[in-house]
């Protein structure tokens, strides 16, 4: 005979103010099979849990229903309490009468009515619950970090410095990401490459870090603690083991007029190239699309130049299969292409550039060796207009959100410009100045007070060319009048957007993303560095626009999550796994395909003489994640999920 205990929690006012808990307790007390039905202000408190334990012992309860908040909050708490009282934890269920009831209803009577339905339904379910034992799975102590920007490098270093193995995968020929492209960094104006390159070298030389550059993730299978990852090593056409990085080939390559991605089109590179001088690893790649040999079968000058015989035109992509325990995604961001803002003239006038291009102009290693020269004629601009929020906070044409870093880097650009061009004038069109952060407001004040950046509050309506000048028309909303400025150069603080392939990539690794392609955290406030997939963590600007301090902090946070995971030999897993009824299975094997974790195998059933009499599906409980996909697929209802069996679900539905 079932002896179920029902524990109704007020959650202070959260439930108590809407649901008549006394009435609910009385009604549940009447329900067949319920031995105890009580209410209490906070069952999750120590005395609350104690009272549950006591009730279990005193009444020999066979099952427990706690009517309270979402099981995401306290299922673990109450299951543990039950276990401590000697009841199998899987005989405890939560009836969610807060998120699914009191919080979303205004009418008290109706809410009480619904709370009764929800609780009764769980009582009916729990009567059919079975005792289950958690499953233990081993943990592979090797982390995969995807993306070699500052976030990825930091995460990799933190994990490796704690003694765990890391594989760092970067799809470009070098580590560095965007930070390698920056000139100096707010709010301290230290040189970006000077602080970045030591990190890159440290990561590359770390005995615990295996660096795979020019590599892409092909597929990710498995689950927390036990992922199998396939990496495509794109062919560099340069043997990484033979090349010494002397760079002779680069000097000799006759294809010299290729627009440099690293310099955002402001500089040129050769077909065999490293993106920048301090690239890590310092091994060139051949850009097949622009290589003369690949285009018309003649050249190979680089191969003739190379002393080490490192160049191999027959190289093909290869694959690496990795066993991985945890994944850190640090794939970063892109800047928006502002050709969509026709009125700003980006893409039309060469002297209208974006912020990242300005970084390259201001960078000592950039195409102008750090001199601010305008792209059209190499002349030093005397008046520069900066346009903030070019694409951000613009639901009609750009993105709705604030890109967070442009206010700060524009202030930085104005400062760098005034340091480099004495007597030069800067005008900054802005909507608000968002300078929240340690030392940030002080930094933007410095731009105004020490470096005479002229801030104009208002939007720009049009940029056009007239008499060799870029005419910028906008409004100064504080003075309430239109303004027109004749500028030599215009810099657009373009929106920070997700990588163009972010959504595709999210599907490859199986994580969620928002409408823009930024990756979703499990909980914005409480679990900001975890994705909704167990064992996959998020660092840096792939989650939302971020500056360097935030990216680094988040990266270290992911490292601590990974290390916590690696501190265990075995992971305990919920015993929620599928089983198959071989007698009724029709052997269609749709479930084999449907299972996202490849947990279902084909199985032959043989007679005594070894002849196949039947072919069926068979679930490997070690691999099954309990998602239930196969159960919903199976037409003949042969599959069933422990903890959520057909009988339990049916009872739950009928209990409503």
């Amino acid at each position, binding site marked *: 005979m079932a002896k179920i205990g029902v524990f109704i929690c007020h959650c202070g006012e959260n439930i108590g103010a809407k649901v008549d808990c006394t009435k609910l307790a009385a009604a549940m007390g009447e329900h067949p099979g319920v031995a105890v039905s009580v209410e209490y202000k906070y069952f999750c408190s120590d005395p609350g849990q104690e009272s549950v334990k006591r009730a279990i012992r005193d009444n020999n309860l066979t099952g427990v229903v706690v009517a309270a908040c979402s099981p995401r909050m306290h299922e673990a708490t109450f299951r543990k309490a039950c276990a401590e009282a000697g009841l199998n934890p899987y005989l405890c269920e939560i009836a969610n009468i807060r998120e699914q009831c009191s919080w979303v209803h205004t009418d008290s009577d109706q809410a009480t009515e619904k709370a009764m339905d929800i609780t009764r339904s769980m009582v009916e379910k729990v009567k059919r619950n079975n005792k289950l034992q958690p499953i233990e799975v081993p943990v592979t102590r090797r982390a995969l970090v995807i993306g070699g920007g500052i976030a990825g490098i930091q995460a990799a270093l933190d994990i490796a410095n704690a003694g765990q193995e890391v594989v760092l995968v970067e799809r470009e020929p070098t580590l560095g990401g965007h930070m390698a492209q920056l000139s100096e960094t707010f709010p301290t104006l230290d040189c970006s490459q000077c602080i970045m390159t030591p990190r890159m070298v440290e990561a590359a030389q770390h005995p615990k870090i295996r660096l795979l550059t020019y590599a892409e993730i092909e597929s990710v299978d498995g689950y927390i603690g036990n992922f199998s990852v396939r990496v495509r090593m794109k062919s560099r056409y340069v043997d990484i083991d033979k090349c010494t990085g002397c760079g002779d080939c680069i000097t000799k390559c006759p294809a010299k007029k290729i627009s440099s991605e690293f310099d955002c089109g402001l500089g040129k590179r050769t077909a065999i190239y490293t993106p920048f001088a301090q690239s890590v690893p310092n091994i060139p790649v051949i850009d097949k699309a622009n290589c003369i040999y690949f285009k018309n079968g003649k050249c190979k000058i680089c191969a003739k130049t190379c002393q080490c015989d490192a160049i191999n035109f027959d190289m093909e992509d290869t694959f690496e299969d990795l066993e991985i325990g945890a994944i850190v995604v640090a794939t970063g961001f892109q800047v928006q292409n502002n050709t969509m803002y026709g009125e700003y003239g980006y893409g039309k006038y060469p002297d209208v550039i974006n912020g990242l291009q300005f970084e390259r102009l201001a960078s000592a290693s950039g195409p102008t060796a750090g001199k601010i020269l305008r792209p059209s004629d190499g002349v030093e601009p005397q008046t520069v207009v900066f346009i903030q929020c070019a694409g951000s906070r613009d639901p009609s044409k750009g993105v709705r959100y604030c890109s967070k870093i442009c206010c700060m880097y524009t202030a930085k650009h104005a400062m760098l410009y005034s340091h480099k061009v004495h007597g030069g004038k800067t005008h900054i069109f802005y909507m608000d100045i968002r300078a929240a952060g340690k030392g940030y407001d002080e930094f933007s004040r410095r731009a105004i007070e020490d470096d005479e950046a002229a801030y104009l509050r208002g939007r720009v309506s049009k940029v056009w060319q007239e008499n060799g000048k870029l005419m910028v028309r906008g409004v100064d909303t504080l003075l309430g009048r239109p303004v027109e400025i004749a500028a030599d150069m215009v810099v657009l603080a373009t929106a920070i957007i997700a990588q163009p392939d972010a959504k*595709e990539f999210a*599907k490859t690794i199986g994580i969620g993303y928002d409408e823009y392609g930024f990756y979703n955290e499990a909980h914005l406030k409480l679990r900001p560095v975890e994705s909704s997939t167990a064992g996959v963590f998020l660092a840096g600007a792939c989650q939302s626009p971020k500056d360097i301090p935030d990216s680094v902090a988040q990266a270290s946070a992911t490292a601590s999550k990974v290390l916590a995971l690696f501190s265990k030999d075995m992971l305990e897993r919920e015993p929620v796994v599928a089983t198959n009824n071989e*007698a*009724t*299975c*029709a*052997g*269609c*094997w*749709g*479930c084999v*395909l*449907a299972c996202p974790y490849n947990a279902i195998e*084909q199985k032959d059933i043989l007679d005594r003489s070894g002849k*196949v*009499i039947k*072919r069926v599906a068979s679930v490997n409980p070690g691999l099954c994640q309990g998602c239930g996909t196969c159960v919903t*697929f199976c*037409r*003949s*209802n*042969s599959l069933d999920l422990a903890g959520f069996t*057909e*009988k339990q679900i*049916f*009872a739950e539905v009928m209990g409503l």
Partner: protein
Amino acid sequence: MSIEEQYRTRAKELLSGGAVKMVIGYGKGSTSDRRRPLFISSTDEVDRLVLDDACIQNLSGYLVSEGLLSDEKRVAVFLRPEGIRAINILAAESQLDAEQIVIFGFDVIGTEVKALKGIHVEEFSDVINSIKKGAPEAKEEELFEKIEKMSPQERFSFWQEEFAKCIKCYACRQACPMCYCRRCIVDSNQPQWVNTSSHTLGNFEWNIVRAFHLSGRCVECGNCDRACPVNIPLRLINHRMAEEVLGAFDHFAGMSKTQEPVLASFKKDDSETFIL
């Protein structure tokens, strides 16, 4: 030589040489315009085979009868294009080995019977492709158009009335080559998801389950529709489901013997219009 004679000759050859152990075809039925399935294992019976425009039943379902193919011997079967597609699905769902099936393909255009060239299922992919292209207009009929034009409420009451007639005889299931389950979900009583009594709710449950189980699998052979003793227009439901999967996933049931079942597989570029 008529196609009937050609196929009789071929059947004789195959049986006498032992290339196939059985030929499944059509024989005379209870009235002059009906044909019934014929299972022939000796050459003496071959002359009872009939092939004309009255041969409409899809015979592929008989191939999955328990034990028929387990000796790995070949079986020949008369099939229209729909039946050939059914072989592909059965092979894709591991119910048979397509190598074991020798096809006597034919199609009926108007009243004329036309032979389809080929022996094994792979050889008919052109035929199948051309039906995929012509699929919608060929099948559409007045009643279908009428239902399409109804409001959801009207459509619901239309089907409510139709399903009210259902007597839960499961003739539709028995006739369907895709309903090969050893235990149909409606026969599972622990728990009893689908009500056994033939009241409106139970009938709805059954017919909806059936529609879902056949979406992306039904080849629109019409076996169920013809089997239904109370004339529920089941073909319309099946056709609508076929249109849905074709539109949403470019899935045309039975294209090949390795086609992945539409409800068990996904492509990264599948439309996700159903996610709100």
